[in-house]
């Protein structure tokens, strides 16, 4: 990559980038401020819960088992893995896929200057991610081990130092990932199938590993900190190069086994690794970046040819097909919706199997119907929440929905049918898979035909209700924030709202079914719920889901014309 290099240009580009991301105008409306405060509060609340969790885990590991170095090694592996994944995604999005590349190339700046300014942003982003995930653990570690004040400065330094490795690896990985992505452009079905397989595989590997660990602990009457498990942690930590060196540096002379010279050598080794990887990353990126963005600009309009017959179809079919194709032909949308819907039965099955293994030991098989119900609703919520962008996704083409001679209720009915049908099929498959396995001997007969039938009925009702609620959210406040290729820039607040509603419903329904399958409920001396007899429980849940259904359907269709007409692109 040739061209002049000026730090002044880099600074200007970096400032421009920051301004385009965060804006310069401060809105002063009270509603806006309240919104900001609420967002910040919600974020801090979630983060506080996470930090608290990290603190307790640190305390358990360090105080109870004395596995200080081993714990820090595991933490280093986990946090760096997360940072690498996040950083790779950031690098790909900002360096290679960002739509501003074409615009920036028109300015009198070199490719090298663009690369450096964007890399600064990526590095700072990576640093922030590392700070969020590493600092609370290191600080917790310091508190638990009673570290002196100077150690906290070391933790801060180590956090910064630890953030370099994931960033270098991310830059190296991003290049082949982008090359693969460029190769599979427009091969939608292949990508979809591949995504589903990968999604299922990752999930299965994760759950099987977790299940194996839990089984091992159960079978050998072990717990997390038995002598045998501690040996395993030690073995892992001693072989986890170079992460154990990071752990040794964090431990320092106070807690570790190394003297000053040893620590210095560890630091030199890690520095050498980081410098080596940094050089490789710099060479790979600078060699490929300019070529890659030019290729991206040249092929951003790469498309496929498809000859169809000029044949008349019904309006319903036309709208349905268009909606389906727009989802199928987008990587983001097909992953969010179709891949999740297809993978849901596999995920539900393995989740149930793991939960059944664990649950049976503690509270018995009685929790299985409730658990199945909860898991299915959670996974279906993820799929159905896609409906909460059904209008926003129209983007710049929203005007089209207003000018076509098809009523708004009809247009939304088609969308509703697509989402509800796919989710219903997914629910059907989830119930079929769970039903076939858990009603059999192999599955321990923890479910009956009544359970499966009732779960299916309740879940289908919830699917329709949630779909309606999601569409209502988007009708009320769509956000047409689309990128250059017409796709939504990010999930909007409606998705979050839909997810919250779905998860709340899943927890309430699941816990209700789990609870009253082994706990009797008497009202005025009359036994309402008998343990082991789920008929009344299902009846109650069916009534509640029926009310939800009526409410959501009415909420969507009543005054729909008026509400839709009010939407202005």
């Amino acid at each position, binding site marked *: 990559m040739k061209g002049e290099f000026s730090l002044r240009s880099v600074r200007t580009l970096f400032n421009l980038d920051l301004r385009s991301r965060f804006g310069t105008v401060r809105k002063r409306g009270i509603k806006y401020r309240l919104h900001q405060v609420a967002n910040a509060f919600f974020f801090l609340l979630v983060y506080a819960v996470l930090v608290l969790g990290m603190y307790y885990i640190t305390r358990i590991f360090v105080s109870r088992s004395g596995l200080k170095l081993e714990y820090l090694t595991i933490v280093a592996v986990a946090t760096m893995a997360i940072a690498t994944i996040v950083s790779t995604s950031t690098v790909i999005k900002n360096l290679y896929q960002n739509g501003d590349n074409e615009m920036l190339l028109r300015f009198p700046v070199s490719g090298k200057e663009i690369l450096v300014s964007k890399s600064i942003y990526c590095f700072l982003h990576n640093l922030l991610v590392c700070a969020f995930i590493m600092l609370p653990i290191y600080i917790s570690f310091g508190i638990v081990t009673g570290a002196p004040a100077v150690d906290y400065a070391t933790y801060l330094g180590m956090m910064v130092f630890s953030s370099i490795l994931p960033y270098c690896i991310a830059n190296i990985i991003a290049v082949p990932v982008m090359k693969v992505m460029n190769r599979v452009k427009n091969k939608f079905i292949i990508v979809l199938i591949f995504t589903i397989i990968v999604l299922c595989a990752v999930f299965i590997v994760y759950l099987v590993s977790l299940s194996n660990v839990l089984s091992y602990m159960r079978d050998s009457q072990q717990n997390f900190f038995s002598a045998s498990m501690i040996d395993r942690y030690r073995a892992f930590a001693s072989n986890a190069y170079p992460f154990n060196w990071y752990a040794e540096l964090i431990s320092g002379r106070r807690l570790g086994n190394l003297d000053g010279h040893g620590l210095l050598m560890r630091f030199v080794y890690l520095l050498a690794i980081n410098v080596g990887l940094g050089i490789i990353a710099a060479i790979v990126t600078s060699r490929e970046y300019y070529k890659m963005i030019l290729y991206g600009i040249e092929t951003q309009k790469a498309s496929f*040819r498809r000859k169809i017959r*000029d044949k008349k179809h*019904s309006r319903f079919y036309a709208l349905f097909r268009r909606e389906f194709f727009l989802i199928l032909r987008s990587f983001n949308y097909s992953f969010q919706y179709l891949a999740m819907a297809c993978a849901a039965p596999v995920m539900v099955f393995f989740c149930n199997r793991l939960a059944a293994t664990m649950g049976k030991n503690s509270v018995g098989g009685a929790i299985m119907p409730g658990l199945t119900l909860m898991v299915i609703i959670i996974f279906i919520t993820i799929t159905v929440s896609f409906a909460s962008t059904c209008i926003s996704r129209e983007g710049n083409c929203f*005007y089209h929905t207003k*000018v076509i001679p098809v009523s708004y209720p009809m247009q939304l009915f088609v969308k509703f049918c697509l989402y509800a049908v796919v989710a219903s099929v997914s629910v059907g498959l989830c119930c079929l898979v769970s039903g076939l396995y858990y009603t059999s001997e192999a599955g321990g007969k923890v479910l009956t035909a009544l359970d499966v039938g009732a779960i299916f009925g309740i879940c289908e009702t919830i699917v329709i209700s949630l779909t309606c609620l999601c569409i209502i959210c988007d009708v009320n406040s769509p956000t047409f924030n689309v990128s250059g290729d*017409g796709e939504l820039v990010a999930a909007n607040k409606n998705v979050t709202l839909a997810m919250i509603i779905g998860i709340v419903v899943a927890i309430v329904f699941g816990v209700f079914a789990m609870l009253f399958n082994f706990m009797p409920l008497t009202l005025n001396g009359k036994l309402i719920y008998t343990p082991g007899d789920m008929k009344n429980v299902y009846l109650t849940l069916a009534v509640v889901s029926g009310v939800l259904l009526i409410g959501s359907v009415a909420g969507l269709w009543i005054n729909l014309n008026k509400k839709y007409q009010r939407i202005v692109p």
Partner: protein
Amino acid sequence: MKKFKCIMCGAINDLDESKQVVECTKCGEKYKNRFYVGSETTLVKAGIPVENKAEDPKTLQEPEASETEEVNEHLYSADEMAASLRQDSMLVVKSLKKIYPKSDRVAVDNISFSLRPGEIFGFLGQNGAGKSTTIKCLTGILPFDSGSITVCGYDIVKDPIKAKMNMGYVPDNHSVYEKLTGREYVNYVADLYKVPSDVRHERLTKFAKLFKLEFAIDRQIKSYSHGMKQKICIIAALIHDPKLWILDEPMMGLDPQSTAEIIAYMREHCAKGNTVFFSSHNLDLVKKLCHRVAIVNEGRLIDLFDLAGNEENKANLEERFFRITGTYDERLFEDYVAQESADMRPDLQKSDALNIQSEPAQEQLGNE
């Protein structure tokens, strides 16, 4: 005595030019006279009920004498204006008013006009004058605050589906579903307008050939250029052969050949008794193509006049536009007219002379 036709009942009434408000003797509908200096040019602005305009000082404002003389002699007579709003019109807009939410500004203020079958109607105005907002209201994209819009006799609010069935719309931003191929998109639109298979095939083949899109029609729209997207929008808007074809700045970004094809097709479309309504900034094109033209400024319809067969109106279109939009400045206007006719290329000889002059200077710098 001059007469006017009531748009409500169709009764022909005498126009008392001395009155500010005239009333239909049959149904009692009231209309406001539009006054200009010089009593003989007193006209009825048909279709504007008195109640809506009574407080509007701008419409009562008397223009400068010199401007009035220029403008009024080309205006419609009272009964011509009223007659233009008859029920068999392709499009009737009555007292259309639109205010955007969270905005004090009236984007479209009491606009009324109608389109006849077979005419090409130009809609002019500066940027932000309210052209696109009016078009978005006509097509049902935007809700409006008051007034009515009737397409081929169907009210866009009460009977939107039938009204939209008679309309084809080409937006100014050429937004289409880019993940579909051109043929998929046109077929999708044809399905929505219930166009039979053989008819759509014939039309699609014809338009693809006409607009030179045959090579790209089976490709994804995202690979199309700006002009190609505009063309596919036009094909989709015409696939059901609409009676009313609405285009928002249609020639923007099109190559000269495509512009010529669209103009030719506009004429062909109108020759079949259909109507074309389009907004544009190209006064020259409007002058050559349109039967009638309306000029809007700050949301108000200021002028509406014939161009077909009226050479004087054609000749005065630019000046009228500049005056109405408040951008008239004698010197600038003269420059504009001069630009239209004169050779605007910079004098190459002068430039060469400059270059030659600068060379010794550069050499001198090099030597230093």
